[in-house]
């Protein structure tokens, strides 16, 4: 079989592979990380995503896209699933899907919202809620590659209980040189946090981001309204639009 060509590119078709659940980690009351074993997994870049596909007994199929949460470890990948109220796929993955069960995986997908581990420009990550997932993949890939590239993460969450990867972020902010983590709480701030709960604003991005003169790469991921706001703030501060990469998620199941 010849690989299809398009515009001079030689590309292999993305195939569905049968993966199995090997481990599950509870992250928050509504989010869990699934560790999947995917025979033949070709590897991926931090920021890329996969499609997961479920098949019911009557043949009905439902597929959704999930960001990869970390660099591949051999044929193991991780996704973090946030429960969507009235969702079709996420409640199954959180409540029913069991160790050893199959799920079909296709990927990796996406080549724009990615960070190259040999990059040296400062990086600003701006996460809203479960938008932290592909950004955490970048933080973990940075660590795995031994990169010293300066990273800053601004993470907007409702309350401290909603922080995904809370323990690991605390540890990495302490141990990973050149990684700063700042939080914005929108509903309830933990004790000792300075300031009132608020939605992300100019002061947050200005205080915890990089000045445009340092020419950082900015990655913004979260719900549509959050991304619109954060990306507009960055552009307003003078970051060139081409250096502000966004990933928005709307309703998915």
């Amino acid at each position, binding site marked *: 079989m010849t690989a299809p060509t398009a515009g001079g590119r030689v590309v292999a078709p993305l195939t569905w592979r049968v993966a199995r659940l090997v481990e599950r980690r509870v992250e928050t009351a509504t989010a869990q990380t699934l560790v999947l074993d995917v025979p033949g997994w070709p590897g991926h870049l931090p920021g890329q995503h996969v499609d997961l596909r479920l*098949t019911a007994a009557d043949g009905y199929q439902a597929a959704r896209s999930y960001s990869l949460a970390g660099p591949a470890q051999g044929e193991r990948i991780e996704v973090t699933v946030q429960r969507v109220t009235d969702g079709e796929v996420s409640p199954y993955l959180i409540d029913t*899907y069991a160790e050893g*069960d199959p799920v079909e995986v296709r990927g990796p997908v996406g080549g*724009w919202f990615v960070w190259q581990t040999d990059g040296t420009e400062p990086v600003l990550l701006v996460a809203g809620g479960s938008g932290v997932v592909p950004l955490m993949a970048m933080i973990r890939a940075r660590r795995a590659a031994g990169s010293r590239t300066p990273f800053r993460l601004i993470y907007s969450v409702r309350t401290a209980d909603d922080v995904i990867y809370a323990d690991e972020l605390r540890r990495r902010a302490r141990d990973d040189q050149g990684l700063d983590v700042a939080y914005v709480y929108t509903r309830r701030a933990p004790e000792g946090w300075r300031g009132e709960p608020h939605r992300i604003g100019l002061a947050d991005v200005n205080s915890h981001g990089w000045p445009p003169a340092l020419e950082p790469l900015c990655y913004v991921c979260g719900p549509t309204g959050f991304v619109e706001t954060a990306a507009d703030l*960055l552009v307003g501060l003078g970051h060139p639009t081409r250096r502000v990469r966004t990933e928005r998620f*709307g309703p998915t199941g």
Partner: protein
Amino acid sequence: MSPGFQGRPRSSAPDLPPGQYLTEDFPVLSAGPTPRVALDTWEFVLTSETGAEHRWSWDELMRLPQDTPTVDLHCVTRWSKLGTTWQGVSLDTLFDGVDTDARYALAHSYGGYTTNLPLDDLRGGRAWVVHTYDGGPLPAEHGGPARLLVPHLYLWKSAKWVRGIRLLVDDRPGFWETAGYHDYGDPWREQRYQGD
């Protein structure tokens, strides 16, 4: 098979391509910040393969015959939205008087986005430059002031913030196509990624 997976109770939805689910709201997906384009500087440019340019200002576009298509939208991320209503100018109107032997088109946007389509898919009453959604001005996050609307292909082909179309003798992949998405993108054949 996924043990214990039943899926959502399914009503018959004959208008839904395979792998899609219905949504009532209007999700936003784009790769960068939303461009803000002032109407007095907005323009739309058709460039033929010989380099001949056909330009329309906002006022000129508004003076052209207007269509009001009601169409279904299908996003590659699997949501579909049925029966959306728009107003805009048919590409047939814009191509009227454009002399070309090109077979391909590359739409380009304010903000730098590009996407490729066969030229035939932009003609024959199947594509528009739209400026009005659901009775009001098209919001910037959905591509306003004007976007391409090619509802028979996945929505990434309906370039938001459209600025022009370049006619090409040879196909040239656009932004998402270079990143692994399909060159054509027919939702009914689930042409999501290269090789599908």
